[in-house]
């Protein structure tokens, strides 16, 4: 099912785009598919085994931050990927 991915900060810089849709039913499959769609994110914010790299966060629909890669995703969900360091 299509899940909307929104990129912020360095992931957006490296990807050269701010959003895309990927087919995924949980967080792990989303990270894998995202790495396939945008290989330049692997090694930046994505590990090559379906995990986020330290220093980055995933957020579900703008509300909860999520780390459990088994987190179920539904059609129409949005995953935001952003830097964990929010200091200004």
């Amino acid at each position, binding site marked *: 099912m299509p899940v909307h991915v929104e990129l912020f900060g360095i992931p957006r810089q490296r990807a050269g785009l701010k959003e895309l849709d990927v087919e995924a039913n949980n967080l792990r499959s989303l990270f894998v598919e995202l790495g396939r769609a945008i290989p330049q994110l692997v090694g930046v914010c994505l590990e090559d085994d379906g995990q986020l790299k330290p220093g980055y*966060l995933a957020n579900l629909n703008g509300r909860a931050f999520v780390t459990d890669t088994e987190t179920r995703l539904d059609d129409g969900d949005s995953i935001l990927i952003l830097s*964990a*360091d*929010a200091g200004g």
Partner: protein
Amino acid sequence: MPTAPPGYHGRYLRVDLSARSAAVVSIPADVLRRYIGGSGLGTWILLQETADGIDPLSAAAPVLFVFSPLVGSPLTTSAKFAVMGKSPLTERINDSLSSSHFAIAGKKTGYDALLIVGAAEEPTCLVIEPHGASFESAEEAWGKSSRDAASILADRLGKGFRFAAIGPAGENLVRYATVSHDGRHAGRGGMGAVLGSKKLKAVAVRGDRATPYHDLDGLLALSKSLSQKSFGPATAKYRELGTAGNLLAFNRLAVLPTRNFQTSSFDGAAALAPEAMTLTHERTRASCAACTIGCEHIYHRHDNASGVRMEYENLFALGPLCGIDDPEAVLTASALCDELGMDTISAGGTIAFAMECAERGYLDVPTLRFGSGEAVLETLEQIGARRDVGDLLADGSRIAAERIGHDTADFAPHVKGLELPGYEPRALQAMALGFAVGTRGADHNRSGAYEVDFSAEFDRLNAGAEVVEPAIETEDRAVLLDSLILCKFLRGVLVNYHAELAEMLNLVTGFGVTADELRVASRRIVTAKKWYNMKQGWTPSEDVLPARFLAQPLPQDAGPSGGAVLTRERLNELVAAYNLARGWDREGWVPAEQLRELGIE
């Protein structure tokens, strides 16, 4: 005089501007070990030197420039110092930290701190060199920006001096005036007004007194490794986008304070973000002295070759908070704050508050409307000169609300008088706690509790007692960096936080401190700051947020934070849990027994 530990001079210089005299004061070695430097050492000195209940703008009030054991070392980001005293904005302890060659030159004068009391009769530049203090006229620099003042005084004094100076806002006792140096600012809490009250336009430092290192080879090796790590992915955001890189993510999460905290997302955010501004404006990058991270992003206005440092905080405060979506207006307003010598957060927060007052009919200034860049610029000029409505707003939103009356105190955006930075507390509720209990008021550099909110372990919209310990941990970690002093952007680089910082301190000083000793030092310094505030009149009723945040939910249309509620009861419970976790009583009074245990008095 006893030998000081490596990294220290073991003394501070106490200057009396009224008597035009100076005296050297020894600092016991055990004090240096227990309070380290920067904010910690400064708090200890202020406790010795400040009368209870003192007027911060009186001649007797001390202002303090504090260095640290790491200043001048090859450790990246260590060229820092703290400007401290009782804030005229909050009437509580204030420590404004900044970075520049002033820190390195200041420490080379041969003192770990410069304490200034008294007041000059005429505009003065205080000159500090290893042999002591001298007093130069600053008449021709009075009325000038800090940059122009430093240039005038440098021409007169000769080579090798570094200057910290105030602009017109400091001279006019704007309660959020900065102390500026090399284009950078000790920004928060109005220490510039304290200098202004003393007719102290500038402090010039020059010296050749280096301090030895306990283990130079080890320090060089560690410094090289730290610098290499500081180039890595943990700091890429700061290098490539700067702190302004927060803007779009904060807006998407709806935690971006907008129109005086009436909502938390801003339609015009995209135009202000660095991702867009790099396409519309020439940008250059820069670093603080002795820094390898290089987070500074300087944007050049279309009509002016001079650049403006753009950080998330000045962007938020002079942009969305005032309803401004024009990048040129925000850049010009930031440049004007630099020129006048004013804290951008408090300036933006106070103007946004005034805009809401005017729109509600409580302030008769028809031009003050959200979204008007012209109004922001005109009001900044008026504040810097204390002219027209600027005289009212120069005292900050808390005092302005007291004078305007009606229900305006409910939406004056401050804690203890210090205007909130760019984190919406109803949608970042661990940060709300950090703001409420902060000893210098609402501040994102003293509490990093937003890290707790930006975590999968906690619910940023519904914080409970579980956030208290991690929020305290961020505060303790921050005060340690502020005492060593190192930049907080190194946080992501450190894996074993306390152990690595202990190693740095030990290589410089030879103290042999452990990670646990540094944890205790953090608690000691936080508690000492609280003790200072208690001696200056703190009461538990100060540890709260304005009524807006506790009575009004965020609007339902505020994106994913829509409808967020933080009740007064919940915040009170969080504050009580915080106080108890610190070993204080439920209201926040520090027991005498703890003061003794920590060696505070």
